[in-house]
């Protein structure tokens, strides 16, 4: 007969340091823990509730502008700085990490600034606006800025040095609505009555595209494919250009205007358009006759959109005074952010480390949010991290169960949005009912219900 004995050497079980954890032996025999499913379900439930408890997404507001914020730009090379411009022509650089205040201003524009962008190396800021000017600014070095901040923390001296930064100014014959900089290149595009491609060193556009009589309202370069850009224009068109070619590659005609476009930084063929009808439409750049996904939830026009650098989700700002975060392949938002005082949101940005979201709104404030509402900030110990991961995994695993689903999905909505949603739902239901009846009472095949993905797209222009 064999006798099994427990033999454990002292060496293995001796801690090296007093802070080390005691080593514990586990028996993973499943028959010893028969209730694992129930246990994990309970944990998932607890995790879902804890997530609700710790959901405090609002980090802080940055005020200083004297008019509604029209556009923002993030420095691709420096996490702490963000540029914002307002309707009165004021451009500011903010330090969002430590002090959350203006680092410097870039005065010069006479009318509203409508477009703002930073070159990839973070040295040049480009702005354009209704005063028919395109201005290039050199951005102060982050290191300098840091030292400045440490020395002049309490004073507002920073403002006085800002005049130095104007590098170049080009005067156009028309107001431009948007500007965007190429990734890893020195070209940038301005959009107005026509689409112009500029080089930093030239005062004339390297290339111009004209299309129709309507002006272009937004332009965005593809981060993965630096020569490709997408624009949206006032005549409800979305166009894709290759700047090496002389004309547009694709044109989609939609029923409503597209306010902004964002390319997926991890999937260069895909982009998402923020539409006036309150939905966002994700397109594959190769097949435009239908949207790949329709992201619904906003109750008013979506004003701006920005992709997370991970490419897995994007943030939108809407005229309904809310900011929402959508998964890149999900029909509904994962998160909604709103505060009592936040007005129409005109611009949103996802921070370059995919951790924060910044929104600029009509109430002259920039707001900093966490991208994940219940995320714990600061240094997290490995064990803590593991615990968070486990909670997340377990929640994800049981997310389809009714109780957990309910808790995870529940959000408190401002009254106007709630009402508007209810109203639109009622309207949609009525419409669907009517359609169903019409379909039922007509010859089969005569009434065709169009899918949501193609409903708002008129055609792809050949």
């Amino acid at each position, binding site marked *: 007969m064999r006798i099994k004995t427990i033999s454990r050497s002292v060496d293995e079980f001796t801690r090296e340091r007093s802070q080390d954890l005691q080593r514990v032996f586990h028996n993973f025999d499943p028959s010893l823990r028969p209730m694992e499913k129930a246990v994990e379900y309970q*944990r998932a439930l607890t995790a879902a509730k804890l997530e609700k408890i710790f959901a405090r997404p609002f980090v802080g507001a940055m005020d200083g502008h004297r008019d509604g914020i029209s556009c923002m730009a993030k420095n691709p090379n420096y996490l702490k700085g963000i540029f914002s411009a307002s309707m009165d022509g004021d451009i500011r650089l903010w330090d969002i990490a430590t002090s959350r205040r203006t680092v410097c201003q870039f005065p010069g524009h006479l009318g509203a600034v409508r477009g703002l962008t930073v070159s990839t190396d973070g040295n040049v800021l480009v702005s354009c606006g209704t005063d028919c000017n395109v201005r290039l600014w050199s951005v102060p070095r982050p290191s300098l800025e840091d030292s400045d901040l440490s020395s002049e923390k309490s004073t507002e001296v920073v403002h006085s040095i800002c005049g130095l930064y104007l590098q170049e100014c080009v005067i156009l014959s028309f107001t431009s609505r948007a500007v965007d900089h190429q990734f890893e290149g020195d070209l940038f595009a301005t959009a107005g009555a026509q689409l112009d491609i500029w080089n930093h060193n030239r005062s004339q556009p390297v290339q111009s595209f004209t299309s129709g009589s309507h002006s272009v309202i937004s332009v965005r370069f593809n981060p993965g494919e630096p020569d490709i850009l997408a624009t949206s224009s006032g005549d409800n068109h979305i166009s894709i250009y*290759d700047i090496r070619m002389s004309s547009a590659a*694709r044109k989609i005609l939609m029923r409503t205007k597209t306010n902004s476009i964002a390319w997926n930084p*991890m999937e260069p063929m895909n982009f998402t358009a923020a539409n006036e009808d309150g939905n966002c439409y994700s397109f594959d750049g190769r097949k435009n006759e239908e949207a790949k996904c329709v992201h619904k939830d906003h109750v008013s026009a979506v004003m701006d959109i920005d992709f997370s*650098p991970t490419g897995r989700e994007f943030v939108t700002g809407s005229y309904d005074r809310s900011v929402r975060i959508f998964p890149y392949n999900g029909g509904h938002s994962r998160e909604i952010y709103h505060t009592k005082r936040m007005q129409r949101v005109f611009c949103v940005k996802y921070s370059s480390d*995919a951790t924060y979201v910044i929104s600029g709104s009509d109430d002259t404030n920039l707001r900093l949010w966490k991208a994940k509402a219940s995320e714990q900030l600061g240094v997290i110990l490995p064990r803590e991290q593991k615990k968070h991961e486990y909670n997340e995994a*377990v929640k994800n695993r049981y997310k389809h169960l009714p109780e957990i689903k309910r808790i995870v999905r529940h959000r408190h909505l401002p009254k106007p949005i709630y009402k508007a949603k209810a109203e639109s739902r009622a309207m949609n239901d009525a419409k669907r009912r009517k359609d169903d009846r019409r379909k039922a009472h007509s010859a089969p095949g005569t009434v065709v219900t169009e899918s949501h993905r193609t409903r708002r797209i008129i055609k792809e222009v050949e």
Partner: protein
Amino acid sequence: MGGLKRKPSSSAKALAKSKKKKGPHLPNSILKVIANQKRPLNSDEEDDDDVIGSDDEHGGDLYEYEEGVPEEESRKNNRYDRHDNYDYELPDDFEDENVESEDDDDGGNSDNDEAEGDDDDDDDRHTRMLQSLTGMPSAAFEGESKSKPVLFTEAYPEGEFNPTRDVLEGKNVLTEEDFLAPLEGTPGYQKTSKQIARMRKDTKHVVHAPLPKPQRERLERKAVIGLVDEEFSKWVHLVKKNREAPTVYFNQDVDLGYSTVGAIASEFQPRTEFEKKMASVLNDSEVSMEDHIKDHNHIAKMRSLLFRHEFKSKRIKKIKSKTYHRLKNKDLKNSSLGALMDPEMAKEEAMRQEAKRVEERMTLKHRNTGKWAKRMISRGLNVKYDGPKAAIAEQLQMNANLSRKMNSMRDGSSSDESDDEEELNDGADEDTPSRLIAKAKEKTLKALEDDEVPNAGLMSLPFMKNEEANEEAKRALEEYEEWENSGGENSKKTVNVSGRRVFGATAKVEAPKESRKDSDNFYDDSDSDNDMAGIEDNNIEPVRDNASPARNTITETEKFDDDVAGNPASKTTFDVAMFASGSWKKMAGSKNTESKKASRKTRAPIPQAQDKKGWRDEESEDSESEAEQMVDGVLTSTSKETFEVPSQAELINRAFAGDDVLDEFEKDKEEVLNQEVPKPEKPVLVPGWGDWTNIQKKRGISKQMVQKHEAEKKEWEQGLKTRKDARLKHVIISEKVDKKAEKLHTTTLPFPFTSKEVFEHSMRMPIGPEFNPSTIVGELNRPEVVKKTGVIIKPVKFEEVNPNDEVDDEHPRNHQKQRPKKKTSRRQGKVKSK
């Protein structure tokens, strides 16, 4: 041109067709001839370019010609006469035509048309104008107008966009010949005309008119689309890979420089003389890591042993008790250790043991043969009381010990003494090698013991010696035993023959075959020998006797198989055992373990025989050479007893004699039924009102209660009947829903899953740290996106991805996600079947 531009672009094809159909009906050459004939008449002020343009195949003008002359108009014109012409009014459709063309034309043109309209009506003036313009006699125009009484209503001045009717009808078109005609006879004429002819033939170099803008843009866009799509398509594999990856990492490319001292050290390059020297020295003395570790471990072990020994000896030294030390010394002497250390002592000890053994055998003192023991047993006191019971057990134990010792001793140094008295029938052939081996063994043992024993240092420590000696002794013993076994094989041929014989006899009954795919050399040798020996050697009796010593040595419990092995007569028992080969083998195994404590010598023949049976049984169905069968047949012809093979059912019955599965199942089912459809309780008289007055007893149970009970009973019966397993005798189907478990199930299949099985499979394993080893918990719980706060994530960079490569990071959750799935049913039918 303008007209064409206004046409909806969708009808581009139709337009092309119409061009073909409705273009000038006459071929160009004929037209030319006509034009040449009419040349003197045709003298309008049209641009040459335009005319040529109309000849061209692109002929936007031809199209316009078609638009410009509606049929009604010509018919209408036929109705009009010259007189009517004077008070001419604009026809209704005229305005429309005007509006259409107005859009395309320049502003200047439309200005002109009013002025033109005024003086148009006067035919004479027109003729005069023509005359003045062309310089031709008015008769020409006259004749034309007379022969064709057509009213020309030109709303616009003739020009690029408004050619004359002649041109529109394809009649008086200017050609190259028209221009060349006046030059005829001049010196360069021939050359020019040749050139023109050549040009006409050569259609390649004709510069076509540019396409209209929308068409051109469409074509351009198409070309660009192709390029852009190509650009996008190259990302597909990369994107797919990223999407399918269970985890995407964005925290990888953080370059923090050197992270550890080791990393810095590994980068070190010797520069100065000294450093180089050091480096060379370090590199030359190549101590491999393994050796180093081995050395280190060895030293550490030695040190710890020394330390412990020191500790122990200190502690022992501290003990003041004299008795303890005395006893300890005695122990040391008595122990095998002491014996091993001192050969003299060992001998003495062995002698003493031997004497004891002899005494035991002689007296059988400890086998309950004593007076006291007999009395105890006869009176049954050993059962009643614990004391005597223990004492008797002890005696028996002692007896067993002594006899066992005796066996082991025979193996060892004292074999020559015991052999003579015990193994009476052992052949001489066996004696010599075994003795030799025994001698060698002894010698080695001695040599080992005599080996230099260091007086100081670690090796001198008792436990060290113990270790070494034990090890050596073991190894030597093993060797000798091996020798003995293999040697003994040859010497014990007869024994094996007997075994074989026995099996051969049984083989006739159910034909056991042998094939030795798996048997080792040990058996191979012996058997091949046996085959030969079996034929030669017909003497059976000594064979039997040969086996008997082995039988004598084994304990009573082993009697059964010994009989089988040794006695060919007892075939029946053996055959049963063969049938239940599994159990047989088990028995054999247990015996083996038991007899391990006994001496090797006794063990040797038994397992041999057993094993043989074992593998014969196993491979009884295998084929065997005919010769062997023959041998067996010859040898076994003496035995006439046959064995009846019990039927399978009988065997099963015998095997499961004690189990009453059916009854158990019925009980189970009843229990389940009672739980799910509980039987209603019978109403009982509850003591209460009227109890003491005896009224209640008289009345009995109230009617209501009885009725209620009846109803409940009916319901119960109904419930039993409607059960799914009501008619299935051997099945329990439970339809009860566990409410507490319900919340763990979902009614619909969650999104990415398409089959229930896969979904359930994905949910089967828990992912928590309590249920999984820590090595995989991290993987199980890893989020889809791993990023680090403060690390800038760059957009994707293009890299070639092989689409056939699998995702390198195998992740348990990945499988769950990729696979299709289905839902868990809310109702879980529990089906038990017998």
